[in-house]
């Protein structure tokens, strides 16, 4: 099929695509984009870099899609996406990071009006360069009229990106072959940034599996840990790990390691009963899988800061499926109710002014992240050794 496509493409007939791209690679070069608007070259960076990680929910803001079970939308209008992305770009511009890692960013999906979100953000922030790693590339997803999907992770940088790579993660094994071929194929984005004065750092953007029941997410997190352990350059990683912080061990039924009273594992306020038993039901969380990352690296929010119990942890929650204008079946309005998004740096680094931008006022930002995505941005100043 690929050969046939190549022949017709060579004949200049038109673009030729597979119905669903298996993204069949282990590691490959990723494209590097540059802002078209002329910008001054940034001065060489010091030891401190402002870093932000944000799952931008394909520019849908708080529109409830069918797989969220609070709504049944499948498609957005062009103005809905542009208005949402304008808010997202404003928040980014207010915080003004040197490095931004995004997940659930799209570059040509039907549901998000075929808008190239990487270009949109590049042209509306101080970030000059970007790389985009596809994680879902289907010419047509034959479910609910979803249609074309081009979704991925992107890394934006004020400084030049000199090398960019996509590193493939393991696929789920608990799906039938047809569903699997039209489903997401997770990949890590890796970018080498030239900070000037011969300083190079590496940024990683990740988004691990959300709905598997076969341990795929756990394997993906383990692979990320191994990648970081093997990284020879100074690095920073950010993204949506779809996992809770390792405050406790979910396998311990009692005793000091038990999660009882320390960390909510089920019964989140944004879960809807109608999702139970569907392919979008929330699988059990396994926070212990995050433990190696906390032990071997430096998180932007430490477990000591995070604390125990909802009341203490609430200020660091990063996710809510349900938005502020919606109420759950008990009449409770949506608000951040769990932590899934993280920033890590290698040992010897430290984080300053790190926080979750949950609401206006945090880290000097006036935009309301609760209305811009179902994830809050995590941000902080990474001080390299």
């Amino acid at each position, binding site marked *: 099929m690929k050969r046939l496509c190549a022949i017709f493409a060579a004949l200049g*007939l*038109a*673009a030729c*695509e597979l119905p669903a791209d298996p993204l069949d690679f282990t590691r490959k070069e990723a494209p590097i*984009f540059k802002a078209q608007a002329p910008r001054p070259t940034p001065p060489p960076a010091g030891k401190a870099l402002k870093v932000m990680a944000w799952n931008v929910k394909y520019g849908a803001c708080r529109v409830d899609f069918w797989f969220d079970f609070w709504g049944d939308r499948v498609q957005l*209008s062009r103005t809905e996406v542009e208005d949402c992305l304008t808010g997202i770009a404003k928040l980014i511009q207010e915080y003004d990071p040197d490095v931004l890692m995004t997940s659930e960013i799209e570059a*040509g999906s039907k549901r998000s009006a075929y808008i190239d979100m990487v270009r949109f953000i590049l042209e509306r922030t101080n970030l000059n360069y970007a790389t985009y790693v596809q994680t879902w590339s289907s010419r047509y997803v*034959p479910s*609910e009229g979803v249609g074309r999907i081009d979704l991925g992770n992107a890394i934006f940088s004020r400084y030049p990106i000199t090398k960019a790579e996509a590193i493939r993660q393991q696929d789920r094994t608990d799906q039938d072959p047809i569903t699997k071929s039209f489903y997401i194929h997770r990949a890590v984005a890796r970018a080498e940034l030239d900070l000037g004065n011969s300083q190079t750092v590496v940024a990683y953007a990740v988004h691990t599996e959300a709905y598997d029941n076969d341990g795929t997410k756990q394997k993906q997190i383990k692979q990320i840990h191994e990648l970081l352990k093997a990284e020879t350059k100074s690095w920073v990683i950010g993204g949506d790990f779809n996992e809770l912080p390792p405050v406790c061990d979910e396998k311990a039924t009692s005793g000091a390691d038990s999660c009882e009273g320390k960390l909510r594992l089920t019964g989140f306020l944004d879960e809807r009963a109608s999702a139970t038993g569907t392919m979008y039901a929330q699988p059990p969380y396994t926070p212990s899988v995050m433990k190696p990352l906390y032990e071997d690296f430096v998180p932007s929010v430490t477990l000591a800061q995070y604390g125990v119990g909802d009341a203490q942890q609430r200020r660091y929650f990063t996710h809510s499926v349900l938005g502020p204008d919606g109420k759950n079946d008990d009449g409770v309005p949506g608000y951040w109710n769990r932590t899934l998004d993280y920033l890590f740096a290698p040992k010897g680094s430290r984080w300053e002014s790190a926080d979750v931008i949950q609401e206006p006022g945090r880290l000097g930002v006036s935009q309301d992240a609760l209305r811009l995505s179902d994830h809050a941005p995590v941000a902080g100043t990474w001080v390299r050794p």
Partner: protein
Amino acid sequence: MSRVILSVVLGLATVASAEPRVARDTADVGKKGSWSVGVFAPLRFAVTDWLELSGHPLLFFVDPNVTARFGLLRETPVRLTTEVGLAVPTPLMRLTQGFLFPSWETSNNKVGWMMVPRAAVLVSGGERRKHVWTALAEFQFRVGFEQTNAGPLTSFLGPLDLAFAAPLTGYVGRLGGAADFALGELFRLRGELNVHLTGSDGRLVVNGVGDVGPLPSLSPWYFTGHLAVDLAVGKSSRLSVGVYYANYDSGASEVRKGADGLSQRFRVRSANILPTVDFIWAGP
């Protein structure tokens, strides 16, 4: 296996009458009582020498459809036929909710009842059993009785998008030309080129919310072509094998790397190249 199939097909072909098959999909209307039907080609029945009725039997119960063909100029070097038809695609669209269209399980959005009238004019010249050329102009449009919340299909198949273009974009028009050549007594070669224009992508209306803005703008122009070889089988039937090509805007883009190592994303048109096969029974 392929030799066996070839032997069977050629064996059937040998019993074909010595007269070439008539050119198909032209302005010519069959003699009273003549008929033809394919697995995919519509059922056609000549009620009189100047009126033919046609419809797709496979789709009839989910997409009721009928077309009447009126031969206005028949026994002349240049023949002229008009077609008027009507289809009701709502049941088919509702049956495919969850796949081609949203299920809308938490809202009252829906595929509304509608009908799609169709009108066409065909002009043909040449001899029916020899070489025939045909020009065609066709227009289909939606008459909606209820709000439909689905936007353009924009699928992976251009012909599928065209089939749903009138119900989802408001209308689709076509200008086309075809040439059909007799190659001896057994074979016919048929080539066809068309330009299609669909309605606008429109606006997204969500029940309970209202008009939430324009849908993404894709090119409304489709270019299609079909090349087929018909093999005479039996007394009046034929086996048709061919290739269909469609060129259209499906929202695709392509990333191209420049000499400076930086990449740019460009919008590109999409293509379908599809094999076609049909067996068309005909009589008398």
